[in-house]
């Protein structure tokens, strides 16, 4: 008797929660992740191995001895996937190639560097303000999850082009912020959202330029 009623009550709690969860899912649906639009088949190709996007130059500061603006990308001739290692410098003026449409949701540091150096994408830093000011990818917009969820990032979002790829990053690993912000960006009409898998630590470790002091 006692155990029977106890079990019934336990199941009733779970049942109530299940009903609540079902109704909640209907009222507030979630997106299961970032979904890229179907591949258009186009290949974005940079014209020159030029330095940085124009607005990103002044505040940049290299943090180590890795090669800087002349770090380039050499697409191997016999494979579809280019070797995007930044450690392989090309002579100045050599062309860079990256197929933007072929990128996965998660991009590697070399892929992100190619997008950045060719000015093919906007970058969004989702880390807290102190970390952003301590060092960020040059030219990155600072949009935290809290800001975008609470509608405080509208001004920043106006500067983002919905037609351009956006690379979102946080501290790498399984940090939530980048995917969360990426999903919210897609909900706001930004189609091509990518996540930098290794985050800023991966970028920094690769020896790429870092912007100190915050920016956008």
């Amino acid at each position, binding site marked *: 008797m*006692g*155990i029977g*009623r*106890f079990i019934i009550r*336990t199941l009733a709690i779970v049942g109530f929660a299940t009903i609540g969860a079902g109704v909640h899912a209907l009222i507030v649906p979630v997106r*299961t992740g970032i979904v890229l639009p179907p591949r258009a088949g186009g290949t974005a190709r940079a014209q020159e191995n030029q330095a940085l996007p124009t607005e990103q130059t002044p505040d940049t500061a290299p943090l180590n001895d890795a090669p800087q603006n002349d770090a380039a990308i050499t697409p191997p001739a016999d494979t579809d996937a280019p070797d995007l290692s930044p450690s392989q410098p090309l002579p100045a003026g050599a062309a860079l190639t990256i197929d933007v449409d072929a990128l996965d949701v998660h991009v590697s540091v070399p892929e992100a560097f190619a997008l950045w150096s060719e000015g093919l994408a906007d970058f969004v830093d989702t880390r807290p303000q102190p970390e952003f000011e301590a060092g960020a990818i040059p030219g990155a917009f600072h949009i935290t*999850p809290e800001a975008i*969820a609470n509608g405080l990032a509208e001004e920043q979002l106006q500067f983002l082009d919905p037609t351009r790829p956006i690379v979102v990053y946080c501290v790498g*690993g399984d940090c*939530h912020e980048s995917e969360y912000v990426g999903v919210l960006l897609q909900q706001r009409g930004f189609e091509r959202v990518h996540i930098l898998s290794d985050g800023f630590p991966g970028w920094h470790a690769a020896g790429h330029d870092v912007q100190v002091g915050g920016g956008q």
Partner: protein
Amino acid sequence: MSTSAPTAARRVPGPIESTAMLALRVLLAALFGFAAWVKLRDPQYFLTSVKGFRLIPEIMQVQVTYLVPWIEAACAVLLLLGLWTRAAAVVLSLAIVGFIAGLFEVVQAGRSVECGCFGKFSFICDKGPLGWCNIAQNAGLLICAVVLVIRGGGRAALDWALDRPGHASGENGDLPLAKAVDPRSRHA
């Protein structure tokens, strides 16, 4: 213990025990109520946490995202009221055991995962990658819940008020070790 009556009389918790049980109920209700609120308010963020654990099959991630906070909310309300206390504490204990198992797996694997336990907030343990602190925190909560399973909600609970002779079924959903006997009859 006052359960030495020959008829397996229901133990009457004293004022200190009742106060302690009330404190445990309020503590668990506050923590899990808050945890449920932040998850219910922003299920999208909690989904990223669920996915980050990489322990739940993809097909079940959305269901878990909605179900966990509703279980937490239901248990929090029941614990706060002291209604169906033992049943709520059991459900919560099972949930916490699941949390600990997941945390243990992540920490053992050395993966850098952030806890979505309290949304973007954190208590006791620093916000950041999961660690042993989070496991210890959940173990503490598990102990609190198990104590409630064993001892019940105390006298400052609806269970106790509804479990008087001529008022209810006489067992308030408790485990059979707590058979109801009118406490006043023991002194008659």
